[in-house]
């Protein structure tokens, strides 16, 4: 197990390094730079700025300087916001994104798995039709449309929830639904098809032939098997939710990470782009790693040696 963990850690660091390298190269190969804008900056100022942020150094040196900083968890200064560092952005934004994401994750799990189970058990009946119709809507309609619709009905017409902000718990209701809608629908469908598949397996017939109750057949024999594919997609889903959605954060005016990230791209804020990407990638890799450990716990066939 230790050997596996070390091997895995090495792979994770290598992946992270390659992502950093790729983002770095892509960013620098796009024409323009952080200081090109509508208002022309004088040559002297530009030179001074380039000098200050070491943009005159050869690219490879810039890259290794950056990686050196990464190793000390220093993501560098922002090129656009004087006196701010990328670490500041993450420290400011991530708690908002993570809190919203965490609540959304709980909502997603509590809604999607029971939905999938009910649909599968009522396969072809009205409950299944209804839930899968909702799930189809959730998968096909983009989150900003759902968000707008929700705001119109619940905030504007009914005045039950605030239009923006997360000052009270009520403020979380609409963003959580809008942000989790896709994942709920997607996971509910996955859960349904997975459980249906498992219910047709030979070992379920064996379980029924033992005379145990149908409830026990489902909960003891079918569910754990059916959860395996759901756990697989859970890793990326968790990372996605916790690192924030720009659209949802923008609509509901939540000062999370998403806003910083999108702004940094449009403003060619090199360090922020790479920093946020690396942060997101590290998070995603860690979640996938946790999922792998979970696999080990639920499926005895998987052993990492």
């Amino acid at each position, binding site marked *: 197990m230790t050997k596996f963990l070390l091997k895995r850690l090495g792979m994770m660091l290598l992946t992270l390094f390659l992502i950093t390298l790729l983002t770095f190269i892509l960013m620098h190969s796009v024409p323009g730079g952080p200081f090109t804008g509508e208002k022309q900056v004088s040559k002297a100022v530009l030179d001074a700025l380039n000098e200050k942020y070491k943009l005159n150094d050869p690219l490879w040196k810039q890259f290794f300087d950056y990686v050196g900083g990464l190793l000390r968890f220093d993501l560098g200064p922002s090129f656009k916001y004087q006196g701010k560092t990328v670490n500041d952005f993450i420290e400011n934004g991530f708690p908002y994104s993570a809190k919203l994401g965490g609540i959304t994750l709980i909502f997603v799990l509590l809604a999607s798995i029971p939905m999938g189970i009910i649909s599968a058990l009522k396969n072809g009946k009205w409950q299944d039709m209804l839930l899968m119709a909702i799930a189809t809507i959730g998968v096909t309609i983009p989150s900003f449309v759902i968000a707008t619709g929700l705001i119109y009905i619940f905030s504007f017409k009914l005045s039950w929830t605030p239009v923006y902000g997360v000052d009270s718990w009520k403020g979380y209701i609409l963003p959580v639904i809008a942000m989790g809608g896709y994942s709920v629908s997607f996971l509910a469908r996955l859960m349904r098809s997975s459980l249906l598949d498992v219910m047709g397996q030979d*070992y379920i*017939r064996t379980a029924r032939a033992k*005379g*145990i109750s149908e409830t026990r057949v489902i909960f003891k024999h079918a569910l754990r098997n059916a959860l395996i594919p759901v756990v697989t997609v859970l890793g990326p889903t968790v990372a996605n939710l916790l690192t924030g959605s720009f659209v949802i954060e923008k609509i509901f005016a939540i000062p999370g990470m998403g806003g910083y990230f999108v702004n940094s791209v449009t403003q060619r804020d090199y360090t922020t782009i790479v920093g946020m990407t690396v942060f997101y990638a590290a998070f995603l890799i860690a979640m996938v790693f946790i999922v792998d450990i979970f696999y080990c716990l639920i499926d005895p066939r998987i052993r990492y040696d």
Partner: protein
Amino acid sequence: MEPILQVRDLHTSFLTSNGEVQAVRGVSFDVERGKTLGIVGESGSGKSVTSLSILKLLGSTGKIRAGSIKLDGEELTGKSRKEMRSIRGGRIAMIFQDPMTSLNPLIPLGDQVGEMLWEHKKEMSKEKRDEKVIELFRMVRIPEPEKRLKAYPHEFSGGMRQRVMIAMALACRPELLIADEPTTALDVSIQDQILKLMRSLQQEMGMSIMFITHDLGVVAELADRVAVMYGGLIMEEADIYSIFQNPMHPYTIGLLASIPDMNQDKSKRLVPIPGSPPDMIRPPKGCPFAPRCQYAMRICANEMPPYVKTGENRRSMCWLLDPEAPETGNPFR
């Protein structure tokens, strides 16, 4: 003595989007106490559906349309779900074809076998259950049974898994064991071990067995009586010697001609039965085997043949055996 299982005029159908599949169309047989009834037939003959009907394990689309199933004189067809549960595993146990997929991959084998005891012997403590499982593992000749309680199916070979299935089935000493092609998925050498094991356990426990297979060789090893099924009907039923020595139904004769024989001239080719089984959504009006039967007469395709008593305690469903059938062209008289 009254047979342990009496099935009379059983009809079972599956409702599909294409129509009603009439898998079993009026099947009657007995399983005698302590004896083995072999049910032989090719895929789609209705043999598995017959066995699943007895335990009502037909799924949501399968329905018993008519008939009676009596276990020790007690009618099963009208039983509620709850009543059926105490019969499944408790009084009638079942072993399935593919041991590789019939065990839950995520649950330790000891727990899977123990669950049978947990369900039917609620008063048993966890320690007692484990002890009993070890005893069962020993009974089916699993080596080092104490160490196997926590093992998972993927750690066992196919033959070992089938032993676990047998241990599970026998945990509550059922009166009847239904074995649905238990050796089909195994190597021939392992098949032989499993058959020998089943025979010795039957003698030890005195249970009755209903053995379903498409393999006449396997039936010869184990069965006392044989029912040959085709098209959802029993074509011929007789004791094991008569079936092999003196088959009366053209289908049985065809089946026997298609198995290789050690003493047979090697240059002689095996004789297959031409054609394929009938469509059970629109089963033929007459004998289901008529389109493939080389002796078929005009009446065979149009009218369902009656059962003809062909000897002491044996019967066949064939027009050729009817007293009024013409002498010419009849190979059996």
